[in-house]
């Protein structure tokens, strides 16, 4: 009798619902992340000639000057990118969430746009504007006789990357700021604190979950990014080194895979450190429908200063897109501050040729982003709200996707899925466009997961308990209470997933098997391989940015309206 009671108790601890969900997610991650990656990476642990297990390749890594130099360069660039990105994001986040600011929603949406920078073309545009012989420096040299090395070596990488990824901090920090109880700030004001001190002592520490989430994402993303350094011809960083070695043909070099492992380990370390920093800071606030940071009015002089700062920052972070637009209308732009002349020809070309790319992209990116927020919310909930054993590993596994270079994932997918024929058509599984969606989803899942986790951290569990007390099932509580309260974070996750998936290339290019299935980034890549294709490529890039930007803005507006109706906005 007693033994029955005991086992019933231990079964009760593992509730069936969450366990099933966890198992499903684990299966998904296993199939579409772990297996493909392991297939590729185990080469790093193999002795090249005998095939036996060995760590000698790692020893070689640490003894090699070039690799160690690359390691420190990557570290330096990532850290500096976080610093610069913070400097760009903080004023924008603070001013738009904290004050009565006309166009706050527009600015928030514009602030996402740097993320939507198709590969190749972002760096090309920045070179055109800020390069040694770019617009700014040509003008500076002509008029003042000096030039600023924006784009030289590592500086160029830092510059481009911080602009490209600063939205991570902006979005997450803004969501965090919006969720701080108004009384926290008012009580500080009441005690005599105001202005920057108020921000530094009270507001910012309470917004830390959002900031840390964003900053750690920026660090990891810059650390692992290969497109920008490669295009700027900076090859002594870890990610480009890995790519160059894995993708060179005719030789079997394990070092590329060794570097991939190092990348993954470092990224995981960075995440662990940030998790440590946030431990014990339980900042859940009880929303009583009227919480959220009070919006203050600014005096006219303050307004002018604020708008100036915002405008300057926006101009800087939208510089790549400005360059892109100029390029899309340009006839010839060569060694001069501005193009020689302008034309609509490129848009005509793109319009005629690339409609399919655009629809494909919208479909893939939306599906991938939707998948991401669903899985992200599920994992966040399992980790923060249940006591399922081993749930932390779901989080780690999902985040590990960040550290996997796109090319590794692409090759892994090919290896894992090519041999499996699909039912009915006999085509290999890897050519099915849904696999492409999964690749996009897996690579973006970390962003969504971080956003959902931060959002859930700010929702007190008492709110759910209240609902359950009123006889709502777990599922209904999730749908009616938890998810709506998380909507800000979920939206942030969806937006970043969607925006970055829409322009992803490195995994895509390995997996695309037919033009009709190809997304936009692929079309752009094809254009950028020839001199005559710059214009159309830029035009296609502008299309991408506009479409994704519009989608982002619309979803923002819709969700803001929902929040306002629920009294979460003032």
């Amino acid at each position, binding site marked *: 009798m007693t033994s029955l009671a005991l086992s019933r108790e231990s079964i009760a601890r593992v509730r069936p619902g969450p366990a099933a969900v966890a198992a499903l997610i684990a299966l998904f991650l296993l199939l579409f992340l772990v297996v493909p990656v392991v297939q590729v990476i185990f080469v790093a642990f193999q002795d090249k000639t005998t095939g036996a297990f060995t760590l000698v390749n790692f020893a*070689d890594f640490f003894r*090699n000057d070039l690799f160690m130099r690359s390691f420190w360069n990557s570290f330096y660039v990532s850290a500096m990118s976080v610093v610069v990105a913070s400097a760009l994001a903080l004023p924008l986040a603070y001013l738009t969430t904290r004050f009565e600011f006309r166009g706050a929603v527009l600015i928030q949406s514009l602030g996402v746009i740097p993320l939507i920078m198709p590969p190749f073309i972002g760096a090309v545009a920045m070179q055109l504007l800020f390069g*040694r012989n770019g617009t700014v420096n040509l003008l500076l040299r002509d008029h003042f006789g000096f030039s600023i090395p924006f784009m030289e070596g590592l500086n160029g990488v830092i510059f481009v990357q911080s602009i490209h990824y600063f939205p991570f901090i902006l979005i997450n920090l803004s969501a965090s700021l919006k969720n701080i109880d108004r009384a926290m700030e008012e009580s500080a004001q009441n005690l005599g604190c105001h202005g920057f001190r108020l921000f530094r002592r009270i507001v910012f520490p309470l917004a830390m979950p959002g900031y840390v989430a964003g900053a750690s994402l920026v660090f990891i993303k810059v650390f692992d990014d290969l497109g920008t350094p490669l295009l700027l011809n900076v090859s002594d960083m870890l990610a480009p080194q890995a790519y160059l070695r894995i993708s*060179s043909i005719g030789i079997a070099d394990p070092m590329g895979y060794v570097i991939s492992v190092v990348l993954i380990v470092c990224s995981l370390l960075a995440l662990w450190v940030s998790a440590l920093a946030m431990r014990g800071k339980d900042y859940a606030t009880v929303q009583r429908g009227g919480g959220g940071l009070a919006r203050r009015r600014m005096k006219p002089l303050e307004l002018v200063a604020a708008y100036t700062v915002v405008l300057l920052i926006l101009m800087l972070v939208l510089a790549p897109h400005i360059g892109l637009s100029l390029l899309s209308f340009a006839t010839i732009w060569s060694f001069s501050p501005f193009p020689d002349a302008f034309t609509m020809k490129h848009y005509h070309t793109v319009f005629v040729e690339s409609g399919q790319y655009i629809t494909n992209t919208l479909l893939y990116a939306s599906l991938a982003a939707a998948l991401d927020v669903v899985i992200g919310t599920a994992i966040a909930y399992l980790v923060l709200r249940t006591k399922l054993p081993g749930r932390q590993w779901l989080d780690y596994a999902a985040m590990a996707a960040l550290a996997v270079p796109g090319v590794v994932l692409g090759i892994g997918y090919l290896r894992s899925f090519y041999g499996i024929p699909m039912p009915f058509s006999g085509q290999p599984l890897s050519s099915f466009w849904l696999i492409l969606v999964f690749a996009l989803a897996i690579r973006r899942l970390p962003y969504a997961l971080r956003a959902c986790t931060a959002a859930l951290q700010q929702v007190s569990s008492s709110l759910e308990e209240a609902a359950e007390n009123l006889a709502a099932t777990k599922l209904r509580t999730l749908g009616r209470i938890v998810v709506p309260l998380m909507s800000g974070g979920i939206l942030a996750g969806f937006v970043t997933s969607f925006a970055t998936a829409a322009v992803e290339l490195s995994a895509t290019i390995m997996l695309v098997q037919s033009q009709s299935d190809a997304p936009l980034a692929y079309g752009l890549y094809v254009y*950028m391989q020839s001199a005559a294709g710059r214009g159309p490529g830029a035009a296609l890039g502008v299309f991408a940015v506009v479409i994704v930007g519009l989608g982002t803005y619309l979803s923002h507006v819709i969700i803001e309206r929902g929040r306002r109706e629920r009294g979460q906005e003032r």
Partner: protein
Amino acid sequence: MSRTLRSVAAALAFVLASGTAAFAQDPSGKLVIVTSFPKDLTSAFQQAFQKAHPKVTVEILNRNTNAGVKFLQETASNNGTDLFWASAPDAFEVLKGANLLQAYKPKVEGIPEKVGAYPVNDPQGMYAGFAASGYGIMWNTRYMKANNLPAPKEWADLTKAIYYDHVAISAPSRSGTTHLTIETILQGEGWEKGWRTNKELAGNYRTITERSFGVPDGVNSGSFGVGIVIDFFALSSQASGFPVEFTYPTVTTIVPANIGVVKNAPNKLAAETFVDFILSPAGQEVLLQPAIRRLPVNPATYEKAPAGYPNPFKDTSLGAQVNFDVEVSQARYNVVDALFDQLITFQLDDLKAATRAIHQAEAAIAKKPNDKARSLVAEARDLVAAMPVTAEQAADPQLAGAFTVERKSATDAVPERQAQVEQKWAAFAKENYAAARKKAEEALALAR
């Protein structure tokens, strides 16, 4: 022969003839081509081919060369690609070695054995050349004007101090055609002197790009002034209106761009028809289009070319200077790539610093001649030019084995690991460049 036999023979012959005619069918269905060529080229051929063979739909999959090879390697078990179409012969060698191509002898007549000094087709027939290109020097006229630089003519010109920090090239490990250019210099001048030249050139590089298009792209936009590029990049840039010029130096290689039928191609007939098409006179003419501008391998096509179009069959200076030995090139292929990367690409900053010091010292000596300084500078140059391995060592299969996987038999000695070798070379270069720089600075101090 008896009458009956003769008529039977005639009937048989007729049947056979009509049978063969029946076998020479029209191709149809989908034709999948993995290619690294840009859209300008592929669309032109795609349209022309589809017009000639309306039942075929051509599907172009654009990948850079390396990704394309990897793709074929990964999908070999259930191959869906019909043709591989790219510039670099080395990619085809890799595919050939991995048994991923199938032999096909094009039915087109009139294609010569060699173009310049380089064979047009693979001797085993695994791939065929359809267009030729040569390496040369491209520059941006506006940039040159703004920086007061004269138009270069020969490789040697680019080693001069005046071009310091204005030149770019793509890494030979990333661009098969650049590799061939480097190899041409090595074969033309000899191992020691060739590397010296390569390093003197490298000392003037602003940057070394990862993809070959990075160089003409940079020249087009004026990021740097001079680029070492393949001719059609420069010519098509000109056709697009960019303010650029191009010249072939005397020592250059003309290299064919190739096409090969993939093993187990789903649509073999269409694949072979396509190969024949691009070698046919109609196909070869497509190469003359301004956006494409490549050199046809069919000498007859040049009659249709505009005036001044380079003709490697008439103009003997083009690519015939060097007697290119393909075997030698193959044997040391990976070693040359690794040497270039470890000694130049990844040490570019140090190399440039040493070169700059040398240039400054030489400029000072020109004003104030000083024998001691001059000998110091010579030593510095020697240090820069020094190589960690000789030509024989470079060709040694042991060394080459470090970069590849196969061990032919258990009794073969295990070669050093690639990473070890690279580290050795990198350390070698670093040391030498630092020492060279010191010497040059000493020389400068003396000459002041």
